[in-house]
């Protein structure tokens, strides 16, 4: 359904997307990466707003840039808020559906139905500037889905939402991915791509993952596969003590330590796949060798930390 082959996008001297090769079939996918990783640029390439500098993009078997046949089948909800303050959600979504080529009556029907579906039935005639961010997000989502796309691309759709609104919208897009088009009753294959910098948002969608960092795709697979990959990488444990070299001598004879280095006079950094065994060994060494241990901390387990480790793995650096 969607194939990127060695796609690179350069803006002047800035590389937005760097040699990305990935295939998305039907189903839900999460595009995960911190801010500035290149997610929006990648989505811009997929949705035909940008042309690749190098490489090839095929969406439904065709080049998306300037291709009306492809764009007709894409729904896109950008990250930026709508600053079209005076329009109401009903006017806005009707406008977008008309731009997708529908007549005034069909556009009105589709817009009203989609706004109802996203839970804006009561508020569809209020100007956008009077709505909360969550409601405006719903209006954007309705605009992306109302023309019945086969590929729905959402850029940070849950950003800034409260937990209840987030839960509602996650359910909504999950249903979209499995529902059929109610107009025709057809249930052709659909693809959902959700870009986010928050792992738990994407996990909630039970989607396949593609992790992007610095414009490069550093990992892809199911959530479990990526977690396994991350878990298989050595974790860095940082130990602050009064005699790091004696501590190093004590732990280096264990199989749990795969690498170590010193930072300053009082810090030992040990790479291990068995942090629990290492912690036990440190405890024993502290008692046996009378070492004063000031601090033991594992590597950052946040998404940024996982990204960092994935990048190192991607570049072939052990730890």
């Amino acid at each position, binding site marked *: 359904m969607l194939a990127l082959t060695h796609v690179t996008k350069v803006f002047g001297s800035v590389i937005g997307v760097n040699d990305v090769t990935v295939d998305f079939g039907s189903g839900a996918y999460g595009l995960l990466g911190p801010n500035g990783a290149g997610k*929006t640029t990648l989505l811009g390439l997929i949705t035909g707003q940008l042309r690749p500098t190098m490489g090839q993009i095929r969406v439904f078997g065709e080049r998306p840039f300037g291709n009306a046949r492809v764009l007709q089948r894409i729904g896109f909800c*950008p990250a*930026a808020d709508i600053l079209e303050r005076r329009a109401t959600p009903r006017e806005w979504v009707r406008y977008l559906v008309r731009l997708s*080529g529908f007549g005034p009556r069909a556009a009105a029907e589709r817009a009203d139905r989609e706004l109802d579906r996203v839970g804006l039935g009561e508020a569809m005639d209020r100007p956008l500037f009077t709505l909360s961010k969550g409601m405006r997000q719903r209006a954007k989502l309705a605009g992306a889905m109302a023309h019945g796309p086969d590929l729905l691309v959402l850029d940070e759709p849950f950003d800034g939402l409260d937990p209840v609104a987030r839960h509602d919208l996650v359910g909504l897009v999950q249903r979209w991915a499995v529902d059929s088009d109610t107009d*025709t009753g057809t249930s052709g294959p659909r693809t959902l791509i959700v870009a986010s910098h928050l792992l738990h948002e994407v996990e909630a969608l039970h989607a396949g993952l593609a992790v992007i960092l610095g414009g490069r795709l550093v990992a892809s697979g199911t959530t479990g596969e990526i977690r396994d990959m991350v878990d298989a990488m050595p974790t860095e444990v940082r130990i602050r003590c009064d005699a790091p070299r004696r501590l190093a001598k004590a732990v280096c004879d264990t199989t749990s330590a795969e690498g170590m280095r010193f930072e300053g006079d009082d810090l030992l950094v040990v790479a291990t796949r068995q942090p629990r065994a290492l912690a036990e060994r440190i405890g024993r060494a502290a008692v046996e060798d009378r070492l004063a241990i000031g601090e033991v901390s594992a590597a950052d387990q946040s998404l940024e930390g996982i990204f960092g480790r994935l990048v190192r793995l991607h570049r072939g650096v052990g730890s």
Partner: protein
Amino acid sequence: MSSQGLSPSDRSRWPAEIGAAMAVAGFQLGRMVSRQRLLLALLGVIFPAAVMLAVRRTAASGLDRDLAVAMIYALVPEAVCMLGLLVTMCPAVADELERGTWIHLAVRPGGRRALLVGTYLAAVIWTSTVAILAAALAVCVAGVSKPVPLVGMLGALVLLSSLGRAALFALPAVILPKRALVASVGVALVVEYLAGFIPAVINQATVSLRLRSLLVSWMNWRRQLPVEMQLLIDPQPAWVQISAIFALAAVLLVVAVKILEYRQFPPSAEI
């Protein structure tokens, strides 16, 4: 495709594209109905009449009809139309980038084309309406004889001025969206008021030459004009001038649409 029944993709794209352009025009006109824009429009309607009133009061023995027509022409199809189009046509793309709506339009089939053509239509409708009202009021205030045919003629000139110059301003709007206003003023001065007054081939491609020639033709001023002034008009019949404006507008619009369809705005430019 999942939405076979209602989707326009199976049909010819032309009706859908016209519908999309009309939708943009309607949406843009809706945006224009704001307090600020209405105030500006009111100013545009009143200003030429105020000038004519001031001139009429200073003229001891009434205002000469030809002089009044020449002044209203300079004030309305030239000044009011130019200013109206600078406000409505120049921000065609910049406005969408600033509002964060460009991205929504760019991912629609034919959205870029619809945006430009729809904004063009809205700019022409809005500016022409304001300018025709301004011309009618100015003619009434000037107190010239046979005002109705005069308003008709000025209305036609206003419409042609708007059609031609909106297309001219579409180019800076798509090439330099963030500097479109400055670029358009430059284009207006250099193309319309410098090249347009050069008695050479170059002025054939300007709207100002066509409008002046139509004014001279419709007012039967040709024989009264001094020889040197005759160099500044085109002696061909009115239908040639009108066709030339339509052709110029069509060429400029097609070029602007092609440029916009090819343009890419990196994500940071949208904010």
